[in-house]
């Protein structure tokens, strides 16, 4: 009889041609919060899929011991019946159904007549909502509550299944700081009620805050399991990347030239609710070789500003002036913006950045097919050559450029998006959350690429919700709050405290 609720012993999982997990061992003590760290593609998700029965018994080698009993799960329902519930990064909720309906989906509470007992459903749901600290009516539709609250509904749903071991895959990836804090507190609260949690996360401060033990996985192998007392960010990073990352940000010596882009009094309204101001008289500029940051909390209007500037792809009633090298230009369509040398790499690469069913080659050429045109035909061998050059210069990890981008890891997908825009050869590159959902090692590479672009004389605007990142790579930082620029600081003066003060500055009312 051990105190471990879960032991995974010698887990090996092979996909055709790839060994995703090799002899992985994981021991989780009863009642703890256990963090699993690793770069994207290290095998964390695969391990959790083995545990939850997504990869059924027989498709992997090794043993899973849950509550001192060897278990052989056939599927997800099987593992859930034992009390193992996994909450995926992409939430599995139906937006048009109510909170209560979602909680009891496929687990409906039926009355004696065999029909669903709605009173009981809503009553039980409200009890569960109270447990996760969510003050919402159980009949509210999922689409009407924010992502942070949806995450709580997922946990309530897990609680309804008598969860013993709760697995959270990157639970705070899409949440703002406030919601993240609430969620982490909830995990600790559930721990008090005896629920063991496994949390997969990239965010090291968060791991330090909640977890009792950290296991680091790299290249499908367990590197080490560290007790809370010994956890340091540097140690985890070292384990994850397998080398010391002396600096998390590459050195950057700015060589700043003439002004490239200037935006004056840029204003945009909400696309449907056209009376709502989303971007409010924004003034900013970027010079050649300069990396400029835009910091702002969730909902400050960062993406709205960038997309409205980029060919009016967001918003309505857009006004303001754009100058490129001192000459006023119009950016009424994306094509026009690109023609003027402005590029925008989106924060949501899967929805807005990539054609996931198409290969790397065609994604890179997507915005610049005209360059490859010869006698009216696309020169596809040249395209292949160009893509291959980017594959090596950007270090895109794929066996060939004919691999579909949907099969790449987040970091490599982002490199493809960046390649696409670098190939379009713009003067000004707007990068919206360029390292979201990317592991530490790949982040460093992306920063190096940004530096290279700046060194080549491009003007770079980086939008990020990670303040340390902006302060680490930018030369100058703007703070955005409620659609307005509330301040501008050279990076030397931009302390986190000073920035946060500007970022939370409210409109005078």
């Amino acid at each position, binding site marked *: 009889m051990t105190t471990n609720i879960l032991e995974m012993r010698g887990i090996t999982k092979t996909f055709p041609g790839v060994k995703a997990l090799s002899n992985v061992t994981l021991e989780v003590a009863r009642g703890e919060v256990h963090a699993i760290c690793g770069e994207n593609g290290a095998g964390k998700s695969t391990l959790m899929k083995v545990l939850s029965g997504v990869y059924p018994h027989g498709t992997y080698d090794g043993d899973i011991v849950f509550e001192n009993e060897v278990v052989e799960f056939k599927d997800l329902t099987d593992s859930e019946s034992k009390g193992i519930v996994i909450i995926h990064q992409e939430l599995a909720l139906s937006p048009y159904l109510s909170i209560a309906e979602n909680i009891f989906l496929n687990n409906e509470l039926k009355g004696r007549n065999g029909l669903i007992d709605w009173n009981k459903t809503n009553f039980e749901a409200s009890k569960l909502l109270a447990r996760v600290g969510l003050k919402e009516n159980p009949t509210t539709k999922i689409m009407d509550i924010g992502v942070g609250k949806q995450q709580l509904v997922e946990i309530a749903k897990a609680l309804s299944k008598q969860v013993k071991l709760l697995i959270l895959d990157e639970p705070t990836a899409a949440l703002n700081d406030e919601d993240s804090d609430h969620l982490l507190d909830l995990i600790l609260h559930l721990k008090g009620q005896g629920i063991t949690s496994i949390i997969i996360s990239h965010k090291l401060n968060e791991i330090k805050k909640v977890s009792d033990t950290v296991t680091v996985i790299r290249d499908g192998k367990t590197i080490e399991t560290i007790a809370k007392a010994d956890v340091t960010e540097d140690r985890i990073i070292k384990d994850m990347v397998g080398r010391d990352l002396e600096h998390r940000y590459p050195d950057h010596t700015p060589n700043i030239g003439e002004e490239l882009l200037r935006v004056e009094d840029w204003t945009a309204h909400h696309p449907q609710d056209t009376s709502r101001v989303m971007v409010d008289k924004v003034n900013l500029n970027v010079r050649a070789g300069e990396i400029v940051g835009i910091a702002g909390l969730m909902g400050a209007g960062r993406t709205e500003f960038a997309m409205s500037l980029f060919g009016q792809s967001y918003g309505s009633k857009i006004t303001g002036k754009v100058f490129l090298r001192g000459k006023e230009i119009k950016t009424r369509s994306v094509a026009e*913006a*690109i023609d003027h040398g402005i590029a925008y790499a989106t924060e949501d690469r899967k929805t*807005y950045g990539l*054609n*996931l*069913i198409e290969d790397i080659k*065609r994604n890179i050429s997507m915005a610049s097919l005209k360059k490859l045109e010869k006698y009216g035909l696309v020169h596809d061998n040249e395209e292949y050559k160009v893509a*291959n050059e980017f594959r090596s210069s950007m270090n895109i990890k794929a066996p060939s450029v004919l691999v579909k981008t949907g099969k790449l890891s987040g970091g490599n997908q982002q490199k493809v998006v960046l390649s696409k825009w670098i190939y379009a050869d713009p003067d000004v590159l707007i990068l919206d959350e360029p390292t979201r959902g990317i592991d530490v090692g790949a982040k460093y590479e992306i920063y190096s690429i940004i530096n290279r672009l700046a060194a080549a004389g491009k003007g770079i605007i980086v939008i990020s919700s990670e303040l340390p990142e902006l302060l680490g790579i930018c030369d100058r930082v703007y703070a955005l709050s409620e659609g307005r620029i509330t301040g501008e600081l050279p990076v030397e003066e931009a302390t986190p405290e000073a920035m946060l003060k500007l970022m939370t500055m409210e409109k005078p009312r």
Partner: protein
Amino acid sequence: MSNPNPPVTEETHAAGGNINPVDNKFTERLSHVLADLGKNGIFIALIAVVVLFSFLTNGILLRPQNISNLVVQNGYILVLAIGMVMVIIAGHIDLSVGSVAAFVGACSGVFAVQWGLPWWLSVILSLVIGALVGVWQGFWIAFVGIPAFIVTLAGMLIFRGLALVVLGNANIGSFPTEYRALGNGFLTNLFGEFELDPLTLGVGAIAIIALIVQQVRTRRGRQKYGQDVEPMAWFITKLVLISAAIGFFAYSLASYKGIPITLIILAVLILVYGIVMNRTVFGRHIYAIGGNRHAAELSGIKTRRVDFWLFVNMGTLAALAGLIFTARLNLAGPKAGDGFELEAISAAFIGGAAVQGGVGTIGGAIIGGLIIGVLNNGMSIMGIGIEWQQVVKGMVLLLAVAFDVYNRRRSGS
């Protein structure tokens, strides 16, 4: 990495892939061939259907006259399939093509028969009307933003109704000879009467030579850029098989009436649209839009403009199909084009187009159309009733798409 001799050093590890080069090369080649077969599954399906029905019809299917008929009978569906697969790749659908074909057929009857215009002017005017129909539908779809399903469902009713209006509840018939050649004319006997038409054989030979030259050039080009190419033996095998098929086809046509005009029209369309979809910016944009409309838009692709021109193109091709069909029947009637849209859509999907868009080829759609054609023709020869023909065709569509979905899920994309 289960090596029986444990102490594995870094070097042997790295060289592990080349321990048995011969064996490895063979498996690599084999996997190339298998991947190719997987990609061309639809081609194999066509061959299987042809072989099956040659047996079931005691060889009638492959008789020269029947082969010629196969082309002429299915020409208009294949023309529609070309436009339809493009529309489907972009993530739309067009339900109106049958009605448009009927409407344009009726108009051409008015031009060529009632007004007595020259045949070529009638043809041009008819194609223009088709394009205008496309402008109308494209406007609603691309610029107003109404789903193509709805717009073309409405179009299905509208243009069927307009066809009846133009016909005035009567058939228009007896078209001029030149016009009729579109549907059942043959290019033959340019060099006099022979048992085997030398022109047809010559064209077949030219087609084979052109194919080989083009394939070899493509292969050389790819090699020059260091791209992966298929093994030489397989490359040659494929060329020989395809050349043999073209040779047999040309021989069959030569021993019957020569080259059908419909086939010439089709060959030109397949060639042109194949290049458009593979090698032009417009074609690439269609695939990009179908794969991820948002990403395409944010890459500067004018998605609305592409949508609009796609439907103009579809309207024009529907008009062409209407002309060929009317010419073949020598009659513009109210029932013309009934169910064409379903056959064209089936052809595209059997040919590997994806319901979500982004995937599909002209070649696939043509082969899909031919499979349907062989099924129709084969079952008719066997004397199977129309009711069972429908059941079989429905099952084939369902299974083809199910197979495709299964394949895609297995490869995890």
